[in-house]
């Protein structure tokens, strides 16, 4: 948002929870936005930003309840669907389900039989539980994957996800850390914990995916060096020796 606002020549106020990822906070400030650190989690920060926007008469961007944000995220699914002639499954990290909703909309329009599967952090399973129950379920959030930490399911994203996603899974923080290590070691790509969720989920279901064409969405790379060190000290989720 900070980057896009600068491109558009607009002022941006970005609300992060008080204990925010310092890498993300530094990047937001570098792109010229005003940073507000407030609330104990992302949903509390969201409440504060909604109130701030209403008070000032500014546009409040409600990720997960904004069709434009969702369709923007969906361009990722469009790129995948256009690049590949054959596509059996797309695995997507899920925080507030905006990404999986946009991606599923695009992928299923172009590849009718492709499955779209979401992976959420085990310590923050609100969307997972909501998908299972097919209704709104709030759950506490306790995970190292700040990109997946969501307590409150957003209404629009939840509706689309329940309608279009084929399945939802959970990954532990240990699996996410080991996934970061495997992405660095075997794919030579840096990802944050949220960005490793698709790999962790796909590895759990590898028997089912044998011989299939699957795409893992690596949703981000804004990892702190402390977490990266922890990830590199772990065993990889996929042992290199067996390949």
């Amino acid at each position: 948002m900070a980057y896009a606002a600068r491109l558009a020549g607009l002022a941006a106020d970005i609300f992060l929870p008080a204990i925010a990822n310092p890498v993300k906070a530094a990047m937001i400030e570098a792109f010229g936005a005003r940073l507000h650190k407030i609330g104990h989690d992302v949903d509390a920060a969201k409440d504060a930003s909604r109130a701030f926007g209403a008070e000032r008469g500014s546009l409040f961007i409600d990720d997960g309840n904004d069709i434009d944000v969702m369709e923007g995220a969906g361009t990722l699914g469009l790129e995948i669907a256009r690049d590949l002639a054959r596509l059996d499954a797309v695995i997507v990290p899920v925080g507030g389900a905006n990404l999986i909703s946009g991606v599923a909309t695009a992928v299923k329009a172009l590849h009718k039989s492709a499955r779209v599967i979401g992976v959420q952090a085990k310590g923050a399973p609100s969307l997972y539980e909501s998908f299972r129950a097919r209704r709104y379920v709030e759950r506490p959030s306790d995970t190292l994957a700040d990109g997946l930490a969501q307590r409150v399911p957003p209404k629009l994203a939840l509706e689309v996800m329940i309608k279009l996603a084929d399945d939802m899974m959970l990954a532990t923080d240990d699996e996410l850390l080991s996934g970061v290590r495997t992405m660095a070691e075997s794919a030579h790509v840096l990802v944050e914990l949220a960005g490793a969720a698709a790999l962790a989920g796909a590895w759990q279901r590898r028997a089912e995916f044998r011989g299939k064409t699957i795409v893992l969405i690596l949703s981000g790379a804004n990892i702190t060096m402390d977490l990266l060190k922890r990830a590199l000290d772990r065993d990889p989720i996929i042992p290199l020796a067996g390949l």
Partner: protein
Amino acid sequence: MTHAETDRQPTLGGIEKAMEMIRPYVPETPLLRSEILSRAFGCDLWLKNEGVTPTFSFKLRGAANELLHARARRTLDGIVVSSTGNLGLAVAWLARAIRVPAHIFVSDAVSAEKARLIEIHGGAVHRGGAEYDDAHMAAIAFARDNDLHLVDDGASVEIVEGGGTTALEVARQLADIDYCILPIGGGSHSAGVSFVMKALQPQARVVAVQPDAAPVMVKSFHARQALMIPPRRNVADGLTQGESVPFTLALLWRYLDDAWLVGDEDILAAVHTLLESAHVLTEPSGATGLAGAWTRRRELRGKRVVVILTGANATIEQLKAALATQPFVPLAG
């Protein structure tokens, strides 16, 4: 043994043709401005990330161009190459794509991880001796004895032209470049990149950077003669060789503007800085250009600078060593 074409000089037409031939195998790589590093270096800093090709380095460009041309000329029964790792991986990958067996000669200095990666991509790995130059001699003999196609990095205009496609992408995307800085090993990439920049953006100064423990090409460039300097072990395994390469040197004397040396500590700090502030994974060799830019940042102040990150085949041990150094800038600053 059949040999690559060396009796002609690179041309812009040859590089444009190379881009067309390799495109089905090598997608265009990203060129992105880094806000954080622009501030830290005091210049307008852009990163061309060659670590995201299918074999995680720029080497696939030259390998693909050379092999696709060779296949157009004759039937290939097998391909032989010597490599510090990344060219071997690129040749193995492309050989499998065009269904030709590949023999990759590496020195003992090449990590087990890189050797394994080459095998996973279908290449037969041969250990050719203690140093790169030993592996190079072994590859030449093997190709001659078995009458196979030798890919000779540093003696092939097609590898130079393939490598030049990196700069063709850069020069078409971004105008008014003041500096283009990249790592140098044997010099074929630097030759191709400097050739293209001189043709399309002649105002840009192209600078090649080598580790000070393996300085043969940089010292040969400045001395205006082909030297031989035994390398010491260093963190940039992809840039380490002792013999200079006359074919690429002749091009570098003509098109390259400057050549710098950097120490191991700065190379590892560059890897750390790229991870923390640009969120990009590079191997030490691949980050050597950024290390050079940091040591010369006064000269770069206020300029538009493109740094080419040439590869991402880092081992976990290399990444851990990088994270143990101080990055150039604290992110919070």
